[in-house]
Every structure is written in structure tokens, then in C-alpha cells.
């Protein structure tokens, strides 16, 4: 009985593993094949030709740059505003501290999908369609402030008081004393923001109408119709889109899962 139970559990795990990775393996194999429109799993003659081909087109380099730039700038912005606000809410006393923080957390109820139309109108009225700021500035959410406030609450007051007695300004205390102590949370926030920005689809779809402002997910979506017969190119494009978050995940698995648990906590 024990033995059978064990085998059933192993079987479940095997199925989970197979189902989870099968589409990605298919993607990678197809991206490495050079023959047009063949869907077999014949592994002869794998080449990087498709990757070379897509990176040779000038536009693709631009799309890749857009994705990287938007994601990195988004991370910097989100980390900066979240650390500043998180510090103020955790350690500084000012009238309305709790109330403003509560109001900020309430904004997490509003899903980005239900405000795309008015958000688009705002960006349009600002004259920001097809600009980087339109893609980057709306990225920070109250979740970042929440994560950084939680982390900074854990920094002992004594450490801060000691720095104060030495005559450090608030900003210096944040930069020199607090941030080094909450590095781990900053990394969680950075990863979360990076993956979110990198994978973002609906918002770029709306505000980046010009080709030179498109990001990788949009191009992938367009490539499908453009290169329909050429599965290899489409899959190479998908793989380029897939790999950066995947590599980060393999390196920093625990951070990803911490982020999930934290984002579940806010409710």
C-alpha cells in the first residue's frame, strides 16, 4: 500500500513536470530548426540560424532595446519611489501617515485592465503616445510601497537613532543605513517589477502604435501573423521573449516565490 501510494505521488510529479515544460521544449526545438513549416520532432541539423536572422533585422534590435530599457527604467523608478515612500510610512511621524498609507493600499483593488481607456486618454492628452514615459511611468504600484514599508519596519529604531545622533540627514540615513539592511526586499521588488514590465501586454499594445516603440511581446503577437508559415522564426522570437525572466528565475527562485506570497498578503 505504502509502495503504491509512493508511486502514485511520483507519477503525479512526473505529469506535472512534463505538462509544465513540454510547450517550452517544443518552442526551443522549433526555434532551432531551419526547415520551413515542418512540425516533426526530428532533431537533426539544429542551428541558431533563426536567432541570427531575427537579430539581423534592424527593427528587432530596436524592439529588444525597447523591452530592456522599459523594464530596467521601470525597476529603477519603482524601487526609488517605493523605498522613499516605504521609509516615510515606516519610520517618520507625520500627520495622516496611516490614513494616506491605507488609501494607497486601497488603490491595489483597481485592476489596470478596467482603467485602460481613461489612462489612454490621459496619456493622449499629455501628448505621450508612442513615448517611453508612457510605458514606464505607470509601472510603480502601491504594492512596492507596501513591500518596502514592511521591510523597513523591521529595521531597529536604535540603528536609526544612532545615525541621527551622528548628525545624518533623513535621506542619508535611508541611503547609508536602511537600504543596505533591506537589500533582499529591494531585490524581490526589482524582480517582480522587471518581470511585470517585461511581460506587459495590454498597455504597450494601446500606447505604442508606432512600430519603433513596440516591445517584444507585441512583436511576437504580430510576428505570428506576419511569419505564419515560418514557425522557426516565430518560436525564436518567443524564446528571446521567454529567456530573460527564465534566467532570472533559475538564478533567484526564492525571490520570485517571496514576491508571490507578499502580493497575496496585501489582501
Amino acid at each position: 500500500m505504502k509502495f503504491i501510494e509512493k508511486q502514485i505521488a511520483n507519477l503525479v510529479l512526473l505529469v506535472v513536470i512534463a505538462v509544465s515544460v513540454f510547450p517550452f521544449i517544443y518552442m526551443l526545438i522549433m526555434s532551432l530548426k531551419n526547415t520551413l513549416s515542418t512540425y516533426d520532432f526530428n532533431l537533426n541539423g539544429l542551428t541558431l540560424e533563426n536567432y541570427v536572422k531575427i537579430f539581423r533585422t534592424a527593427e528587432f534590435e530596436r524592439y529588444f532595446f525597447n523591452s530592456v530599457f522599459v523594464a530596467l527604467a521601470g525597476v529603477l523608478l519603482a524601487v526609488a519611489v517605493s523605498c522613499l515612500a516605504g521609509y516615510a510610512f515606516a519610520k517618520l511621524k507625520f500627520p495622516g501617515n496611516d490614513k494616506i498609507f491605507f488609501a494607497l493600499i486601497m488603490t491595489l483593488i483597481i485592476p489596470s485592465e478596467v482603467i485602460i481607456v481613461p489612462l489612454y486618454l490621459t496619456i493622449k492628452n499629455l501628448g505621450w503616445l508612442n513615448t517611453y514615459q508612457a510605458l514606464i511611468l505607470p509601472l510603480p504600484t502601491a504594492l512596492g510601497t507596501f513591500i518596502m514599508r514592511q521591510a523597513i519596519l523591521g529595521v531597529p529604531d536604535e540603528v536609526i537613532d544612532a545615525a541621527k545622533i551622528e548628525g545624518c540627514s533623513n535621506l542619508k540615513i535611508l541611503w547609508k543605513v536602511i537600504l543596505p539592511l533591506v537589500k533582499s526586499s529591494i531585490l524581490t521588488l526589482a524582480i517582480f517589477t522587471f518581470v511585470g514590465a517585461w511581460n506587459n501586454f495590454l498597455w504597450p499594445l494601446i500606447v505604442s502604435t508606432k512600430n519603433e516603440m513596440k516591445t517584444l511581446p507585441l512583436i511576437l503577437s504580430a510576428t505570428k501573423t506576419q511569419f505564419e508559415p515560418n514557425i522557426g522564426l516565430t518560436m525564436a522570437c518567443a524564446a528571446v521573449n521567454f529567456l530573460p525572466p527564465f534566467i532570472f528565475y533559475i538564478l533567484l527562485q526564492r525571490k520570485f516565490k517571496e514576491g508571490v506570497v507578499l502580493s497575496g498578503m496585501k489582501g
Partner: protein
Amino acid sequence: MQASFLRIEVLMNKKKRNCQLSAYGYITPILLIMIVFLGVSVLMSVVLSFTKYNILTPPQFNELDNYTRMLTDKKFVKALMNTLKVMVYIVPLQTVISLLVSVVIASKRNTWLGKLANIVIFIPVLSSNAVVGTVWKAILNGHIEVVEKFFAFFGINCSMLLGDADSALLTVAMVSIWKNVGYYAVLYISALINISDHYYEAAKVDGAGRISRFFYVTLPMLKPTTILVVFLGVTTSLQCFDIIYNLTGGGPAMGTTTLVFYVYDLCFKSGRAGYAMAVSNMLFLLILITVVAQRKMMRKDASEI
């Protein structure tokens, strides 16, 4: 002596006040972002939903027209029904699968197979919906022998999965579950690991078998997580868009057009921004009701313990 004390106090008060003022400086950036992009948007969404607005010409106030039109708009009703159907397809199955898979992974987390499953189950979560949609579309439409045989074994014609209006919606739901199970599994696994062994030992002493331990110890201990998983599942599935855009493009014959998809079409294809905002306000209302229900249940659950 007294005077210098007073002076110090005055100095400290001044210092404190400085400190308070600078706090507002620190929270200004995030508040500005939230007010400009979220606050203004919600206000516009409410106000402009009572107007006829095509973006090019100024909005014209048209009272409740947009809201009454929804009642007779067949496309709206279709999109609403599709959205609710997707939710019904996704939430129960997703919750049960992620729970069962998590129990197995958590109990086997020290074996290499368990570790590997725990790692790879999250890969679909971190990949973009564009990748997920594109790859699954290629697999389902690719006339791959292995895949076609696999589905034929269950009596399913693989090419009809995305080609038929009814099954396309179900296919979208299944791909969405495939993508998100790993997310909910992380929540479940972290909760499972935190259940103290004492409970299981006590149940064992009482002679409870594996199955009854699951129902009388594990399941009740996981109740807060299950509430979270169900409600997150509801709100996420109500907003389904990216996967649909990449898998079916809303078709065939509006078969997979959900509310967010309809809003997108209304505003960016037909230029009916006022009506689009009225429709997305209805979606927002649905989500708000869900969130309020969740808070109520969680509070009730916490007070019971």
C-alpha cells in the same frame, strides 16, 4: 540651566517638524503617480461613462444612455456571459488542481522529483502571455502528430479546439489554468509547509488515516489560503485578455470575446470611448463585489479561529 533645556526642546521640536515636512516629500512621487494615473482615471471613467465620446470630437453628455444600452446590446451580453463562463471553467478546476499538486509537492519536497516539480511548475507563471498564447496556438494548430493522436485518444479533434466557438472558450480557460496553477501552488505550498507536525501526529494518535488527515487537518488549516486562491482566481479570470488576444483574437464569431476584450474593441476599433468606459465600469463593479465578499469571508474566518 532651565533656559538651555528649553532651547534644546525648541530645537528638537523644530527638528521634528522638519522631519515631518520632509516625509511628505518622500511620499510625493508615489502619490503623484497614483493620482495622475489611477485617481484621475477612475474619475474620468465615471464622468465620461455618461457621455457620447469618440475621442476625436468633445464628449457630449447623454445621461444614462450608455448604461441602458448595455441591456439591449447583444454583444455586451455575449461578452459578459463569456467572461462569467471563463470564470466558472477556470476557478474550481484551478483551485482543486493547485491544491492537490501542492499537497503532493509539499510531501515530496525533499526528493529530487519533488524539488524539480516545485521549480518547473512556476515556469509558465513567469513567461509572458504573448509567449504562452503563441506557443500553445502553434501546438494546437500545428498538425503535430503526437498532439493530434493524444487528443484523438480522448475523442477530441485537435483542430477544432480553437476553431469552434464553444470549445475555443474552454481551450482559453485550460491554457489560462495551465499558466496560473504554479502561482497558486506557491501560495498553497508555503501554507502547507507552515502547518505544524503536531496536528498530524495528534491525528495519527487518534487513528486517522491519510485521507481523513487530509480532510480533517490539512483542508481546514488551508482555509485562509483557499479563500485567497478562489478570490484571486475570480478577479484574475474576470480580467482575462492577453491570452485570448494571442490565442484566438476574440473569435471565432465572438466566441472568446470577454468584457476586457469588448472594451478594447469598443474603444480602439470602433472609437466608442464613452460606452467602453461604461462597460469597464460594470466590470469594475463585478470585481469590487468580489473583493468585498473576500474581505468579509476572510474576516469571518479569522474571527472563528
